[in-house]
């Protein structure tokens, strides 16, 4: 059949469709019902006299609470950062052809994922100093000592909380990083190998940057979770947000307002973290179609 030119170019969209949209009456009804239920809940809480807005406003920016807030952020950032580093190291070890490395990493993940964080915190704070009395860092087979201290002095509440949370987080991060590494196309590794890149260089320059796209979203979740998990450190007397709040309400008995104060700060922190996660995801989606 001979081809034929139709001669028709693109047309203007002057005759756009103007239709009357479907009305969703059910949504209005359900929204009203939910608003009524929440309103009743709030009103009854205020009427009980235990939720005092003035108290909340008074404590929200008080010195002790702000100190706790700072301590929470410091602990969460430190533990998460160390957890990410541990996660990358143990994920690479887990995927290594070296049997010893792979086994070691498997054992680490098994142990730290398999015991409660709170138990781990107690272990670091109370258990370790009674088992190992002194910590000494020196050069083996010489008398040179670089650092030596009684374990009780070294294992401050912060140190115990940091070690416990970081090691626990490292086990979860190792699995996240491992999933990220496995998500990278095998052809990428082959291309890097064909260019004479060593396994370590390939991991650092080619695989991990691409794995980031898979690693970042769950890591954001982990950090949000970490911000809240730091509250467990209150159990080993670390002066973070919850500990400071309970310090105050144990003297003046304003339990509910102070729990509201702490919750509002946790919400603020997690909101900021979510925004950061979104920005990071955009950054690592660069140059990729999907």
């Amino acid at each position, binding site marked *: 059949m001979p081809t034929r030119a139709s001669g028709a170019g693109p047309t203007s969209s002057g005759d756009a469709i103007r239709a009357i949209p479907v009305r969703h009456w059910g949504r209005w009804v359900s929204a009203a019902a939910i608003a009524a239920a929440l309103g009743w809940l709030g009103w009854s809480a205020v009427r009980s006299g235990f939720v005092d807005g003035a108290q909340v406003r008074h404590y929200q920016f008080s010195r002790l609470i702000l100190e706790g807030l700072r301590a929470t952020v410091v602990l969460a950032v430190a533990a998460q950062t160390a957890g990410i580093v541990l996660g990358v190291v143990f994920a690479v070890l887990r995927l290594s052809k070296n049997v010893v490395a792979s086994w070691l990493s498997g054992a680490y993940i098994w142990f730290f994922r398999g015991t409660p964080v709170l138990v781990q915190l107690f272990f670091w704070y109370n258990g370790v100093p009674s088992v190992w009395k002194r910590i000494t860092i020196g050069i083996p087979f010489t008398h040179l000592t670089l650092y030596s201290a009684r374990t009780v002095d070294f294992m401050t509440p912060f140190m115990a909380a940091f070690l416990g949370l970081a090691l626990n987080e490292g086990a979860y991060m190792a699995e996240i990083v491992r999933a990220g590494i496995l998500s990278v*196309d095998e*052809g*990428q590794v*082959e*291309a*890097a*190998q*064909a*260019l*004479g*890149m*060593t*396994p370590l*260089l390939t991991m650092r*320059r*080619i695989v991990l*940057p*691409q794995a980031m796209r898979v690693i970042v979203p769950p890591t954001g979740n982990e950090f949000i979770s970490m911000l809240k998990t730091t509250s467990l450190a209150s159990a080993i007397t670390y002066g973070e947000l919850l500990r400071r709040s309970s310090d105050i309400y144990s003297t003046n008995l304003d339990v509910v307002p102070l729990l509201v104060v702490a919750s509002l700060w946790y919400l603020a922190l997690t909101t900021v973290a979510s925004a950061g996660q979104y920005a990071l995801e955009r950054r690592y989606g*660069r*140059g*990729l*179609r999907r």
Partner: protein
Amino acid sequence: MTDGPVTATAMVRAERVHKRFGRVEALRGVELTVAPGEVTVVIGPSGSGKSTFLRCINHLEQITAGRLWVDGELVGYRQDGDRIYELREREVARRRAAIGMVFQRFNLFPHMTALGNVTEAPVRVKRIPSSRAETDARRLLERVGLADKIDCYPAELSGGQQQRVAIARALALEPKLMLFDEPTSALDPELVGEVLAVMRGLAADGMTMIVVTHEMGFAREVGHHLVFMDDGVVVEEGPPRQMFAEPQEPRTRAFLSKIL
């Protein structure tokens, strides 16, 4: 086994090369010699072992029997008298850097620009100062006709452009041998020509090339040596025009009649 006189001059020499994947034997005694400056085109049905053989040359696969030399050096091993030692990763990597490879699916690094893809190996592997590597990379990208795409990410390029970046990336290490693994098979038909043109240019410059392809026109016009593989062995080899005109083996004849 010592290196014979042929090995000294051959760029690639394969003697009874076998490769086994579990129960499947992909290569069953490949014999092949590639002279420097020669374009060898390997054809054959899918599953004939031609890609596997190419990957063995670059040690992406380890051969299970036989001997394979590139430029007089055993691939993946070091021979000392009668003993054969496995090479360390670092040494394998060093030898791979002297061989360029182009893949069917391009395998460009998606998180780097065209320029980044080309400079990566010279800077990180050969430790060439990045300013010089960049000058060289610009020249290479110009050579493959992509001077205006230097700052594009792979996702912003067409398949043909991506494959040309991949060729420039392989050339950046100044390889003595280039391996092409079905370089045009993943391309839309209208993009095949631009990639073949670049390869033609390379051949004209005297690059030693081994090309696994289904492009019979390229094999006929550019190839110095045509190799037909089937079922893990080299069935027939010779000058392309002669082989296309009068194939000697029945299997070669059957294959060519299906595709020509």
